[in-house]
């Protein structure tokens, strides 16, 4: 659990972060969302003391981070950067093993942990010996994630981790990332300017603007109960798609007048969102009825949300 209390940071006369307070719970992915210059990255970097706040306190698992040596603190926090930030003179294997080597793990333990992560992040063993520049952007980012995960820290910080990837690579990684069991018992804070990414990955979203926190809540709360017009307008562009994305089939199911066809039920996953589900159904003509029924049910569900 990470608790941020009234944290501020000025760069010269500019207020980069202005008394921000929020909390990231255990086992959740909290997305800090905002446009460039809103202070989201500064906030993130204050958590592992890459930037020292001017005022306010940050607690991890109840302990004030100022009471620890920065190096020790950072070894207990995984960090993923926008451009992977791999060491160009280290092989992929050496890159992944940086923190365990700092922690003086045994070679055997490091090796087996690397292999475990390779598997989970769809990397192959032959990549271990190559240097980062020989990998694609997506692969580099996976290596960057592996490096952040290897020490199994309780906290993971991610600074626009998928920002440099193309859309197709990005959505593939999103899917894998969401389902990564490594994240299950971590507190993850992810910074992004990408609204869709925030909705796809975040359990909760913390929207920032001009150094201040505007609203924090679940994706549904952000969409259906915006506290002001800024929040409403922020999601205005992608509103319809986002609405489909935050409702799961499980939630909407109860609004169906009659159950979906057996064939469709076999094909679909209950936890999948309506956007994905409709996409599956729209691919084949036999699902036309199911598609329409689901649309109707979603509209019923939606009416209740906006009240």
């Amino acid at each position: 659990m990470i608790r941020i209390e009234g944290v501020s940071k000025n760069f010269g006369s500019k207020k980069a972060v202005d008394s921000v307070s929020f909390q990231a719970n255990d086992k959740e992915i909290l997305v800090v969302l905002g446009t460039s210059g809103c202070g989201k990255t500064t906030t993130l970097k204050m958590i592992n003391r890459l930037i020292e706040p001017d005022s306010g306190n940050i607690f991890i698992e109840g302990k004030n981070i100022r009471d620890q040596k920065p190096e020790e603190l950072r070894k207990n926090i995984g960090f993923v950067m926008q451009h992977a930030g791999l060491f160009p003179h280290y092989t992929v294997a050496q890159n992944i093993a940086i923190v365990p080597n700092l922690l003086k793990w045994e070679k055997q333990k490091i090796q087996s942990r690397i292999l475990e992560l390779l598997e989970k992040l769809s990397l192959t063993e032959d990549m271990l010996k190559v240097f980062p520049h020989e990998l694609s952007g997506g692969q580099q980012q996976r290596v960057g994630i592996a490096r952040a995960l290897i020490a199994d820290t309780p906290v993971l910080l991610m600074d626009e981790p998928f920002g440099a990837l193309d859309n197709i690579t990005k959505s593939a990684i999103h899917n894998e990332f969401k389902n990564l069991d490594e994240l299950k018992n971590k507190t993850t804070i992810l910074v992004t300017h990408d609204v869709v990414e925030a909705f796809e990955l975040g359990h909760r979203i913390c929207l920032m603007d001009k150094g201040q926190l505007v609203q924090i809540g679940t994706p549904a709360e952000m969409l259906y109960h915006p506290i002001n017009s800024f929040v409403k307008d922020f999601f205005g562009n992608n509103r319809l798609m986002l609405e489909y994305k935050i409702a799961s089939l499980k939630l909407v199911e109860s609004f169906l007048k009659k159950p979906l066809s057996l064939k469709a039920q076999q094909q679909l996953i209950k936890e999948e969102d309506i956007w994905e589900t409709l996409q599956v159904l729209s691919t084949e003509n036999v699902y036309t009825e199911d598609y329409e029924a689901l649309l109707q049910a979603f509209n019923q569900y939606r009416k209740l949300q906006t009240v």
Partner: protein
Amino acid sequence: MTQEQTLWQFIMSQHEKLLVQIGQHLGLTFLSLLLAILVGIPLGILISRRRKLSAPVLGTAGILQTVPSIALLGFMIPMFGIGATPAIIALLIYALLPIIRNTYTGITGVDPVVIEAATALGMNKTQRLFKVEFPLAMPIIIAGIRTAAVINVGVATLASFVAAGGLGEFIFGGISLNNTNMILAGAIPAALLAVLLDLIIGYLQKSTLKTLRIAFYIICSIAVATGIYFIFSVQPERKIIAGFTPEFMGRQDGDLGLRSVYGLKLNPLVVSDAIMYEAAYQGKLDLISGYSTDGRIKAFDLVVLEDDKTIFPPYYAAPIIKTKTLKKFPGLEETLNLLSGKINDSIMTDLNYKTELLKQTPEKVAKDFLVSRGLYKNANHGNGETIRIGSKIFGEQYILAEMYKMLIEGYTHYKVETKTGLGGTKICFDALMNDAIDFYPEYTGTGLLVLLKLSEQTIKEVSKDSKKTYDYVQREFQKQYQLQWLKPIGFNNAYALMMRRVQAKQLHISTISELSEYCAKNKF
């Protein structure tokens, strides 16, 4: 005339000396380079940490680099004496700038994203430096070392001025002795060393970190070993430390004559005449090969040993000029001859003393002298053709050049241009032959021994008498080069062995024969 040697013959006959010089050269280069690395890299790291220091540190290193190398060597003498130490320190100073600058550039040029990543992963400053910044800056740092190495191979040739050996002994000896083979025997290996070093370091630059480290250790240990071996082993203990110029070393009327006529085998250091007197004065050297009219003899209280077996031929100074030039400038010969017979040895020593020790300009010294003899006339500012006067690179020649300039400007309507400070006999003489200058003051002995290259027999015969020498060179120069020797100025600036007066008295040495006896008694 003796048979002309080919370059190959010269190298074969001198190969032992050549090997020693190459060894010394490598030793000087590597040792200084190693020290420069040990000083430069930490300094580079320091200023990349504290950027405020970067401007003063890089500025200072830059200024040191622009100090002319011979001047820098000169500064070193009072502090570090002569031999390998001042040479290595001077070379170290030259190698510093590229190493510091490239370390600084390399480390500050590391991608900040990578540094941030290293910090975020929990590395402390030291780990970041050695695991990230230093390895990533390595190619640039090595490029700096490469530059420094090539610079040092070049500058190390000047080490011969302070008796530190190296290929400069052949190069500068060759220039003084008008011996092209000798110059090439020094210059070609020096150039090859530079190219080879550049290639080797360039290869290391491309190789990976691990082989690099191994190669670095190997090179360092070899360098230190050879350096120490050559630099310090070739200088055995001596009771009387002799320092001779490269020119003196290779001449019949120099070290060769001392050996054959006097049986004096001193194993001397090779040293530049620019620093030799001061080194003798400070007791770093006991015996030097000076010139009999040098002002520093007076200043440093040195005493000239009598040449009782006359191996040093007379060196009467007189302008030499092409016959066709004399025809081109009517009246010039008479003007130049105004000076003939006007300056004897003691006057010349005094004039030299004024420039060298009292730091008067050659111009002032020349004018004062001409005025006192009633020879000075104000300049005509005529608009005739320009006469170019050359001079060698020592005080006396500067004064003579100034005197001739004033005389020509006062007595004729020609314009004058002086090209002073031409490196040595060969450079001056070549400039004259190629019409880059019109005349310069030369010495009969030099003409006889260096320029004409005669057999030992002829030299012995001719050099017994100053008049004979003058007549002989006058005749031969006319025949071989169509050059005229004008009337002698009067003084005889011959080679001379000299010691500190106090020491000479103590050891009861006043002639070269006595010196030779003393040395024989004390088993050299």
